[in-house]
Every structure is written in C-alpha cells, then in structure tokens.
C-alpha cells in the first residue's frame, strides 16, 4: 500500500473529505478506475470493508486488495431533509448500510431511487460514482 509522504488522494473521497493521508489511499486509485475494493488479511483471510492497512485480529499489516462484487442486503436507511454544512446542496439524500455477509458497506442510495422503492432486506449493489471536482465515491443501486 502507498506510503508516499504527499499521497493525499483521500482528499477526493465523497462530497467533502476530512481525511487526506491514509495508508489505504490506493482505494481511491481503484475507485477512480471504477473498482470498489476492500482489504483482506493474508494471514487470517478476514475480509474488511472499509479496507484497512492493518488486521485487528492478527495485528499483521500484510494485506491484499479484493473487489466488492455481487449484491448486499439493505439493513437500514434514512433520507435526510437537513444536512450538515457542505452537504445542503444535495438534499434530500439517503444513507444506508448493505450487508454482504463477510462485511457491510455504509454509503448513499443512488439519488434517482425514491424512498418508496426501498425496503429493508432488498438486494442492492454498490457502484462507483463520480462527483463534481474529480471527487469519487460509491452509491447503492437496484439490482
């Protein structure tokens, strides 16, 4: 994983990023290529999302990337009518968690999907998403 002193790619994650430097900055590189990646401990085999540079089970730092594939089950969601500073332009928007079994993913529902179309337990997929200004994140879409 990248360890360049000036690798601040994480600045480009989401509508507004609060983190610049992280040892999992390659996540952003993959995302810009259209791939959503988690990390897996080579020793334990445990899959982590969000990805980590270090395994909290074995305390090893020898990790490999894996691609998030398939669908996850919608665990819960909420549509915000009030957003924090920096996010009010995009209102309303819906945050949610998908359960992929080995791991879960927190993110936003794709903006064209109405709340009425959502129900807990439905299968959704996680898709790369480009924002203005070169920022990237991911959204949950219907299968």
């Amino acid at each position: 994983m990248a360890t360049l002193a000036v690798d601040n790619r994480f600045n480009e994650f989401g509508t507004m990023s609060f983190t610049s430097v992280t040892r999992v900055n390659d996540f952003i590189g993959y995302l810009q290529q259209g791939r959503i990646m988690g990390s897996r401990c080579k020793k334990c085999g445990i899959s982590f999302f969000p990805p980590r540079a270090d395994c909290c089970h074995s305390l090893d730092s020898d990790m490999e990337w894996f691609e998030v594939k398939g669908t996850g089950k919608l665990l819960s969601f909420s549509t915000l009518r009030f957003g924090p500073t920096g996010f009010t332009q995009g209102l309303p928007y819906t945050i949610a968690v998908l359960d992929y079994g080995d791991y879960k993913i927190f993110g936003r529902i794709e903006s064209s999907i109405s709340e009425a179309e959502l129900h807990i337990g439905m299968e959704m997929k996680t898709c790369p998403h480009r924002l203005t200004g070169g920022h990237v994140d991911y959204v949950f879409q219907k299968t």
Partner: protein
Amino acid sequence: MGKVGIIGVGQSRFVRAYPGSIREMVFESFKEAIGDAKIAGKDIDATVVCSAPEYDRQRSPAGVLVEYLGLNPQPTFNVETLCSSGTTGIRAAYSLVKSGLHDIVAVLGFQKTSEITAADSQERMGRGADIQWESPFGTTMPAYFAMFARGHMEKYGTTMEDMTRVRIKASTYGVLNEKAMIRKVLTINDFNAPASRLGAIHSSPLRVGDCCKNADGSSCIILANEEKSKAMSEKPVWILGLGSASASVNMAGRETFYSFHSAKEAAKKAYKMAGVQPGDIDVAEVHDGFTIAEIMAYEDLGFARPGDGPGLIASKETYKEGKIPVNVDGGILSKGHPIAATGGSQVRAIVLQLRGESGDFQVKDPALGLVHNVGGAGLYTNVIILGRE
C-alpha cells in the same frame, strides 16, 4: 475499599443561548453544587471537566474553569465521549476517589452550543462519526438514529405513534422542570396537524419532534469517599454500579439496527457490579436524545423485553406513577441537550429523586435509580446505578 458517594449536585438552567462565557456558565452549576454539598471550594481535591471540545473556541477548558472557580492548584483534566461525556467524567471521578488518589472530586460538565449554527453543529456531530469512511457522505446524528428507528420498526412493528408517545411524556414533565429549555405540554395533534412543525420529517422516519435540541448549560456533581460522604452529607447517594462499553463507530461494523450493543453491555456490567436486576430499579434517566433512543433504552436496560418497549410507554408504565418511571424531569427532549452537561443533569435528577427532593415530579420513595447516557449513535454508553443505601 469503601463506597463512593455523591454529596452535591448542581445544574444551570438549560437555555438556547447563554448570555455569557463558558466560565460564567459553569460557575452557576458549581455554586449550586457547592451549596448543596455545604462545602467550600478548598475541600475539593480534584476536578474532572467534561466537554465535547468542538463547540467552543477555548482549548483545554479545564484550566480556564478551575482558575475561574478558584480551584488551583488542585489537579484537573478534560474527558470526552461525545454526548456521554458527562457520565464518563463521573466514572473517571469515581475511580479517582475509589483508588484513594482523592477524597472529594467535582465533575464539571458543560457545553455552549449556541456559538455555532445548527448546520455547523450537525457537521461537528457528523465528524463524531468515522470521518474517513462515513462523514464524506454527509452524515448526521439524527440520520444515524433514524436508521435505528427504521430498523426497530421493521423488526418489531414499532410505529411513529409509539415514538410520539415518548415526546408527549417528556413534555408532560418538562413543563414542570424550571431548568428545562422547552416547557410546553404537547399532544398528538402537535405531530399530526397539517403543516405541523414537529411532525415534519427531519431524517426519515424521524420527524423534527423526534429529535432533541441543542442547548447551552452546565452541570456539577461532587463525589466523595465513604468517610467524607457520611461526615459531610445528611443524605449521601451511593454509586453502586458502573458499566461502560463501546461499539464500532462505523455503521458497517454494527450487527443490528434495533438495539445498541454498547448499552446492553454497559447495563449488564452495571447490574452485575451493583448486584441488582432491572426490576429492582425504581426510577431512571435514559438518553432520549431521540424518541427511538428511549424506546431502545427500555429494551437494552431490561425494563422491557426486546420489542416490548413501545408497549411499556403505551401502558404509561414509564410515567411517574408507573412501575418504572423514566425521564420524569422531562428528559433531554424537554430539557435540551448541552452535550457534555447532559450526563451530570441526568445524575442530578436521580440523586434528587433518591433524596425525595424532586418536587412536582417526585417518584414515590425510590431506593434505587439508574442513569443511561449514550455518546454518538450507540458508539459509547455509560450506565450508572445509584442507591440510598
């Protein structure tokens, strides 16, 4: 090792915008607690200051506060666990006393949220989430709790009307509490009337009326060892059980969305330490920052079985005359939420109940009380069990 007692409690009136500085605001609750304990500042061996630091421009407020209150050169430090900072301070103070390091410790909790806008406040609370993986999506505390509300509705069939009942109960007692910020009796009409402000969706399914409001305020709780408690206080209240736990900050690390695992863990530890059961509790303050949070608290604390929280409030068993009165001082929903002052206010409410000094909202002769204080969306929970004996 002896017991640890609470010998003095104080609270400022919680207000939308306190017309003074943090030192002046903290002075109000400190003076009340010192007067309540009938001690002098020089009797205090150490202080613990509770604050969520993003709300004020003063760094390291502990230093400023102890100078203003005349408590130098005694030691002090700041503690923080978001909205549960106040009870974290009490836990820290308990251990400072119990360990023998100090005889008498004051816990000062405060927040002056009025100097920033509501959106900035949500942004700061959002950065109490995982700033790397969640805040970039525009998260807020109401939206996190809303996910638990939706999870509870899905799992147990809980309705918006069940949540409305929590707010109505809070208003019933808030109107009686002179230190509360919101003092208006609410009815179901306040939610259901057309164009109702409280009924408007905030973060679905939660409505504006399901969410507490930030406030400015301070609280002060004075703890002492057993010897000093008995010598100095006519009615010391004893800390019988303390439980604390954490959960993953990232929602992707949570197993379920209808209960706070940290609350169940903290409760289990507190009950074990006190050697009591949920059914033994006579009066409780739970963290009702959101209506759903009180319903989950009933279940996480064992006052109701999982899914039976809505039934407990529907049958009014958490009213003052019920089998387990909860938040009969109006709770956070009525008092307002000055983040790190809230835990101290909850403890003060239970101490006054156990002393029989709660006036209009006094529960009949309680012997055991409980405080449940949550930081973040179940990220941290503290449970404290207090008793007359």
